[in-house]
């Protein structure tokens, strides 16, 4: 399972300062608490739609984002809260969107599955498994056409690696040497189905060789290891050497969606992975390698909680859309504010 994955702590930690380390911790803790609070807010009736929590997978989103530049662009999947928060999104506008308010990121027309922040280059979560992969490939094509140094990232799961969109996109990206990072968060389950029941290979990364690109396995619960691998892949992409498939081995603490009790998973497996929670592992690195104190970590936690309190209060006060707002934004062209007949 994960025995082969060990935490390359000292070497990796050497490259960052305590402040940088605390910022990575802050983002991971923010993602965790954003989702835990969202689950409660959904139970309390504030969120009408689906939630697909990423608790346990935070180190992938934060580690990759730490290797990116401002002009890079990203596409994501149904489990995308961490991806957008890792990129620096505003939790208040995210809550407003989850609450279906008109000041939310998508003006109340998207919800969790379609969350975007165009200013951050975050081109959207996606409700279709594998749907974001061709989009990032195409964004990378346009960036290459512009002779930009920017790149595109797409996050998807092990399940999506069985979609045609994945295979067609990897072939195209390798063929044209497009600047794109294919980041597979392998949480060992495609919806309710174990990896061994949905593919023969042990590693999704092994699929890269079929398309002539590097495929790299990394411990997805080690934020510094993820950052290092992503930075190397980003360097390759920016220097015109094309795409990389990164497989981050990780684990979903909760079910496929909020409310799924995930009884299809063995108890021992869950317990083993809970011990490898990135929010347990990384504070150890911060203490052991960078000299962080408990007070440092508590300060970060308290600041996140206080900020989320304010964000949720703000979101609850936001206006609801009008029913007829549903007719807007079908087309960019305006047809007297109405949907076309």
């Amino acid at each position: 399972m994960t025995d082969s994955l060990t935490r390359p702590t000292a070497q990796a930690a050497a490259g960052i300062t305590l402040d940088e380390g605390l910022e990575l911790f802050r983002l991971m803790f923010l993602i965790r608490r954003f989702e835990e609070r969202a689950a409660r807010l959904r139970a309390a009736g504030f969120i009408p739609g689906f939630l697909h929590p990423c608790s346990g997978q935070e180190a992938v989103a934060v580690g990759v984002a730490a290797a990116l530049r401002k002009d890079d662009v990203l596409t994501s999947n149904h489990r995308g809260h961490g991806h957008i928060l890792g990129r620096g999104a505003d939790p208040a506008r995210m809550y407003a969107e989850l609450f279906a308010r008109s000041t939310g990121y998508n003006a109340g027309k998207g919800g969790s599955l379609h969350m975007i922040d165009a200013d951050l280059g975050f081109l959207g979560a996606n409700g279709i498994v594998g749907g974001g992969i061709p989009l990032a490939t195409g964004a990378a094509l346009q960036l290459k056409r512009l002779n930009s140094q920017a790149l595109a990232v797409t996050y998807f799961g092990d399940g999506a690696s069985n979609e045609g969109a994945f295979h067609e996109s990897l072939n195209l990206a390798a063929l044209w040497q497009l600047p794109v990072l294919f980041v597979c968060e392998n949480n060992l389950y495609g919806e309710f189905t174990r990896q061994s029941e949905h593919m023969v290979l042990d590693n999704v990364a092994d699929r890269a060789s079929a398309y002539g690109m590097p495929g790299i396995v990394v411990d997805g619960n080690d934020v510094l290891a993820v950052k290092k691998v992503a930075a190397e892949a980003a360097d390759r992409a920016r220097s015109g050497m094309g795409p990389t498939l990164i497989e981050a081995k990780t684990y979903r603490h909760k079910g496929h969606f909020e409310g799924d009790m995930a009884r299809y998973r063995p108890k021992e497996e869950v317990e083993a992975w809970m011990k490898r929670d990135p929010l347990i592992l990384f504070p150890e690195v911060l203490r052991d390698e960078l000299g962080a104190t408990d007070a440092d970590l508590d300060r970060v936690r308290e600041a996140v909680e206080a900020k989320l309190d304010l964000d949720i209060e703000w979101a609850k006060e936001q206006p609801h859309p009008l029913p007829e707002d549903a007719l807007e934004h079908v087309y960019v062209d305006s047809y007297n504010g109405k949907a076309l007949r």
Partner: protein
Amino acid sequence: MTNFTFADGIRQAIAEEMERDPAVFLIGEDVGESGGVFGVTKGLWDRFGKDRLWDSPISEEAIVGAAVGAALVGGRPIAEIMFSDFSMLAMDMIVNQAAKTHYMTGGRLSAPLVVRMVTGTNGSTGAQHSQSLESWFTHVPGLKVVAPSTPEDAKGLLKSAIRDPDPVMFFEHKGLYVGRGGPAGEVVEVDPIPFGSGRIHREGTDVTVVSYLKTREYAMAAAETLAEEGVSCEVFDPRTLVPFDYEGLRASLEKTGRLLIAHEAPARGGFGAEIAAWAAENCHDVLRSPVMRVGGQNTPVPYAPVMEKFVLPMADRIAESIRTLVLNPSRQLQSL
């Protein structure tokens, strides 16, 4: 034979838009040096090179998906899907991604791309290379659907499609290419034609015949025949199905009082049904007989020429339907 063919119209629109806007590029199978299966992009390679013509693997989902992704970050892609039948392999990217981008993001992103597709039959192309699927796309809010029937319209509408801020499905009937030579080379100046403006190809007073793509030519032939019999047909080509020129159609119906819709797609669920429903809801005051449709038979397109001609709405079937509509409307249900 004219020196300005349908293929010229398409090729010139692409070339002129590429000259105008460096964001415009083409992506698809065989669009590069080879000039494409129908020769439509011939010569563009020498003029614009690799950066504007991305000759892709046979991967329809990745072709359209890459076009959507490029459009999200400022590109103006034209995705070429060789046969519209193959667009089925790219439906997620068209329907779930491109069509909904602007809406799902509350207007913050958009996907301005054109998907060009060859449609319809042109002689024994068989059931998987001959379909007329335009009505499927009209059913998806967020898409625009264009269906030109002349070289000039093809050029002017494709220019508009490339400049349009929304995803546009652009249908090119292979019967309007093939047998008329590939690009002949004469350059005809055509301004962008705004969407939602129909074109009257023949004025008349007894019946309005709405038709588009290749069927518009059959409608014209039927109108010629009927003129000799004393029936005056107005042939109205909407040119774009979404948006549709309902004002123009209403004006025509005020003149004729009768409506027949002819298209190659199977009648059941075809766009003619939508036009008929609109007329029933909005033009009851001017209609003096029931609305009638002539479509392809509700079958796949067969291979044998005699069967293929039988299922298509050829001129004689359109003419017979018009006779029924004008002279004996109570019989019409039998002739659909």
